[in-house]
């Protein structure tokens, strides 16, 4: 099962990234667990300096922007 984590304190872009990530995961038909990490101290542990960010199985794939659906699909596949 893939662990998908959305790192961000809850701004509109964080929500958009969560929506697109979930859409991409459903499109791929993979088993996944989506977690929203909103605590700044927890976010900082990933080394992320800009939000929103997406981590897949603990590895940050993108930070500071919301990629399009195709790019997110590639990141989580």
């Amino acid at each position, binding site marked *: 099962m893939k662990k998908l984590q959305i790192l961000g304190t809850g701004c509109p*872009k964080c929500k958009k990234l969560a929506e697109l990530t979930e859409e991409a995961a459903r499109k791929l038909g993979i088993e996944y667990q989506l977690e929203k990490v909103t605590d700044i101290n927890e976010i900082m542990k990933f*080394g992320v*300096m*800009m*939000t929103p960010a997406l981590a897949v199985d603990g590895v940050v794939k*993108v930070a500071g922007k919301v990629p399009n659906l195709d790019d997110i699909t590639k990141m989580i596949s």
Partner: protein
Amino acid sequence: MTTKNDCCGGGMTKVVLACSGGSNVGQMTNESAKRLDVAGEAKFFCLAGVGGQISGMVASVKGADKVLVLDGCPVACAKKCADQAGLTGYQYLVLTELGIEKKHAFDLPEADLAKAMEAARQSLGTSSKGKTCTCRGQGECL
């Protein structure tokens, strides 16, 4: 008024990475990067995190609109870290190429720092009055 979401993927994000090495020019890159950050002209990110390939650090730098890599001397440690982390299209400066002589000393003359800062600002496309982020860590910029 600055709002909480000004820096959450919005606006132009500029990042500076400095070699911060054990010489006058290395420490000048560090001091220049610190001053750019304090002035709000760029964010000073941790080169060790990029060199150590901490995924969050690398992704954060890749997410920036403009990246300036500062090396003190032609050994180019910062550039090598950036390249190994897969960064591309960044601005690059070597302080010895500005006529500053490398020494194993840690005095940082203001005249040399001014030269380094001016070159860094030119590379970033900022001025001492042109700030890119005003939340100063209080908003979504972490």
